């Protein structure tokens, strides 16, 4: 037995002394391998009688277990040390920049139109569209603007080259032709908004020859001017994210509505930002009114049965007011610096439920 204790001590010392995986493996083979010392002793057990074999077997197994455990422990220690050494050698400069990726952004016009759709959609409006090269009837005539009406001078119209038959098409001066096209093809009740490009021959600090409008149209049997006010007040409160934003409905004139109003929003300017619902400033944001009976008649809708309202809002104007964009002309320059500064992440579609702005 002294023999066994000594073997145990020798083997454990050898395990502890193994400096690396190879040395440890040699110790293992020397102890537990096919010709290892413990294996050899195990083979010798068969020569003993049953009593002695049991006692000696127990002793030997205890040594074998102790050595095996010591080898495992030593192996983990050596592995840990090796890994530590490797990790220490392979560190990187984590201050280096990541691989380049590009993040595209949405133009403020797209974002603004999506926000308008999100709000008006909740009020039951559907989006309608139409062509941008229009005929006189849809852009003017059906909208109660006869050829020599002074209102045509309010619309600096772009005309296309005259056709051989003397007619000429034009670039729509507003999104209102889509009102007409919708009323021509749809039975009331009608509730649409029309976002889109519009064109007027005007270019200065506050005008560009192309701009965007959102038109709204409601036709049914009961909608009146009070609903028009309510609709636009709710829209502006939601869009500008100000509860009960004060709006001023100022009588005005459009050939296609009567009564007509221009809508001003109450705000004060503080540096580059506008505060809505405070101060004594008023900024015009929309034109609106009850649809003129002549417009309904032009679309074969009986004005004695049906009525409703229409409004038009400048999209760039909305974007400029909400997002503090100072210059209209910059919208169309595709200047990367501007797009990066004023653009919007494409990840979330505006909804009222989740919030309009990502």
């Amino acid at each position, binding site marked *: 037995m002294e023999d066994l204790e000594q073997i145990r001590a020798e083997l454990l010392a050898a395990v502890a002394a193994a400096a690396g995986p190879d040395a440890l493996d040699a110790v293992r083979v020397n102890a537990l391998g096919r010709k290892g010392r413990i294996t050899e002793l195990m083979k010798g057990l068969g020569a003993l009688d049953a009593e002695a074999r049991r006692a000696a077997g127990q002793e030997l197994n205890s040594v074998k277990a102790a050595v095996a455990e010591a080898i495992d422990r030593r192996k983990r220690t050596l592995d840990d040390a090796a890994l530590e050494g490797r990790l220490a050698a392979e560190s990187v400069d984590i201050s*280096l*920049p990541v691989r*380049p990726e*590009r*993040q*595209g*952004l*949405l*133009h403020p016009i*797209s974002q603004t139109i*999506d926000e308008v759709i999100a709000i008006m*959609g909740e*009020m039951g*409006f*559907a*989006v309608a*569209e*139409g062509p*941008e*090269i229009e005929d006189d009837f849809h852009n003017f005539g059906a909208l109660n603007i006869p050829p*020599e009406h*002074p209102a045509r001078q309010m619309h600096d119209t*772009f*005309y*296309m*080259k005259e056709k051989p038959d003397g007619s000429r098409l034009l670039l729509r001066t507003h999104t209102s032709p889509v009102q007409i096209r919708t009323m021509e093809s749809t039975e009331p009740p009608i509730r649409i908004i029309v976002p889109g490009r519009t*064109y007027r*021959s005007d*270019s200065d600090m506050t005008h560009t*020859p*192309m701009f965007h409008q959102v038109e709204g149209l409601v036709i049914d049997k009961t*909608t*009146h*001017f*009070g*609903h028009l*006010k*309510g609709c636009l007040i*709710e829209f502006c409160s939601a869009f500008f994210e100000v509860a009960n934003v004060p709006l001023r*409905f*100022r*009588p*005005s004139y459009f050939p296609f509505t*009567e*009564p007509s109003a*221009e809508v001003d929003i109450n705000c004060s300017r503080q540096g580059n930002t506008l505060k809505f619902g405070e101060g004594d400033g008023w900024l015009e944001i929309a034109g609106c009114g*009850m649809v*003129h*009976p002549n417009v309904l008649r032009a679309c074969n809708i009986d004005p004695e049965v049906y*009525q409703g309202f229409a409004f038009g809002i400048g999209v760039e104007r909305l974007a400029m007011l909400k997002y503090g964009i100072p210059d209209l002309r910059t*919208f*169309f*320059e*595709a200047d*990367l*610096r501007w*797009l990066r500064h004023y*653009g919007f992440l494409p*990840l979330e*579609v505006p909804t009222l439920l989740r919030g309009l702005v990502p």
Partner: protein
Amino acid sequence: MKFTLGWLEEHLETDAPLDEIARRLTMLGLEVEGVENPAAALAAFRTARVVEAKQHPDADRLRVCIVDTGKGTVQVVCGAPNARTGMKGVFAPSGSHVPGTGLHLKKSNIRGVESNGMLLSERELGLSDEHAGIIELPDDTPVGVPAAAALGLDQPVIELAVTPNRGDCLGVRGIARDLAAAGVGTLKPFEAAPLPGRFESPIRWQCDFPAGAGDACPMVVGRSFRGVRNGPSPKWLQDRLKAIGLRPISALVDITNYITFDLGRPLHVFDLDKVAGDLTMRFARDGETLDALDGRTYTLEDGMTVIADASGVKGIGGIMGGAASGCTESTTSLFLEVALFDPVRTALTGRKLGINSDARYRFERGLDPQSALWGAEVAARMILDLCGGEASALTTAGEMPDWRRTATLRPERLASFGGADVPRDAAAAILDRLGFETKVENGRIRASIPSWRPDIEGEHCLVEEVLRIHGFENIPALPLQRETALPAPALTPAQRRVALARRQLAGRGLMEAVTWSFMAEAQARLFADIPDGLRLANPISADLDVMRPSILANLALAARRNADRGYADVALFEIGPAWRDDTPDGQDTVAAGLRHGKMSPRHWAAPVRPVDAFDAKADALAALAAVGAPVENLQADRGAPSYYHPGRSGVLRLGPNVLAQFGELHPAVLRGLDVGGPAVGFEVFLGRVPQPKSKGGRARPPLDVSAFQAVTRDFAFVVDAGQPADAVVRAAQSADKVLIADVSVFDVFEGEALGAGRKSVAISVTLQPREATLTDAEIDAVAAKIVANVAKRTGATLRG
């Protein structure tokens, strides 16, 4: 439309303060664009007397003036030729700011003589361009009082934006009437009783229009005056005209201008001695000319209404008079024209001739027909008052158009259409105050429309009038009721696809741009022939004269601008219209994108490479996938338009339907746009992507996955260099449509070892068994089929 508060008070009895008047005007639909008191800008300046003016010792053109400012005397060096002892003028002290020149006055030394302040000219005061000398005030002007008061300028000037339907408010009286109707004071009575003529007018009116065109000038009234003196008009009149920016000319001309703005009634006066015989209203003859009062000569044509005498045209009806027959300081006899002109013809003529006059502005918006008569009376009184002499009886041609019309208002419509709770009698009272004569019949308000309101058509107009005076702010706002508890989708599937493509492309790193729908024809022609229907007749500038045939042109130009600013490697996209022709169907909704320069900036860990056609193809495929196109079934082929590189571009199509095109932009096109390369682009035609079938609802088919191990085998084929890799892939795929789950190209190269005109295409084929794990024999059998099929379809051989 401008007027002063004092002028308004000529017609309106009111105690209302100015800001209340301004607020109410705006809320009546007469939008106040500005209220300005010129006195505010002139507060620093006072009247002063030149006690002594003597020659500057050292400068011929300068005088040294001792000026009594009312607070003492100061010495001022003055260069005005009219500075002289005893005169009264406007003094600007040191420390004041001279509005006309922007100069800040300081005590100074001018050629050795101290100068404290300045005596001002009209230009220096910002009143006019007059700078021949300093302002001379009347001798009885007190010294040391505010100059604005002495100049008659301490009146707030109100400027309105009058909408085109309210011609009646292009005179101060019409504005006063609206205010009175809204309860801001009382409208003063209007005096226009007939003035008996003292003699018969030597000139008579004639109308000579072709049959059916008599409405060009339905009625004209006139009268002659003799023994008048046409000097400067009185100060009050000059002050009023000056306050609204008009230059006083002479009493007679000032009277016509005054009545134009006071009553909205344009007039014209002829010097009787410069008119030959009777005056006739007629259309011009082609080629007739007129030297007009604005100093320009106009060539006239048929259809333009003119006033002519025996010798020719004397004035353009409703627009402008002639210079030769106008009244001057020496005029003693005159003939007054008070006419009605057709608004449409007046507008047309004015536009053709390019004349914007105060008269045209009013005639084309519609005048009160009765003003033909009362205008002749009001003007005659004023002429006799200011210029003396005597007036003739009236001469008239034509007839007053029948302006008497009625409209009926069902009072309940105020609530059901206007949303306002206005009792019937209150509504009738509002209309009465506006000059309608109302009576209630069967519960309805029957309103006679006043002659000055040609804009009133029917019930909806009466509703508007009542609401306007009642106040839009007093109409309760109501929520718009939805037809259903929850809203239906606002977007159609096609509209949603536009939004999806937009977000997909932005997610791929492209910045969204919005560019003009129009562009320069020379540049557009690099992309397509431009049909006449897409040419603008009146472009805003020559570089925006046709509708764009492709968005890529604008994006390439934008890339150039960004490169010029130091941002060469841009990735931009735009979703918008591009045009093939001018019909509604000729407008395509296109998602187009452009990548320029390098794919990414130089980086320590990533290689730099230029953009290539496959970047554009990837963008196009991603956009197509986002909008639900069957990307798996798309064929990539040559056949992109000629503005793409012929060898590095293609189309993605479903049968004959081209959904997208992509590739490198043609170097010649880039050169034509002056854009440095390389640039790649794509165009996805969103409208051509087939709509997914809605049948079958939203449920997806059951997930079908195999429990058995998939196997991958690689093959390298040698084919003709012209053979598309896609043909090899498809041939491999078709070898066993059940077992082969995926085929991908992982290597392509050409080399001498393969022989000229040959290339190697290496593919990786994934076999997915469904019944049992594949045996080696089964794998070998499929591999043999793949090799055979590719060989048969593409002429390929397996590379040894």
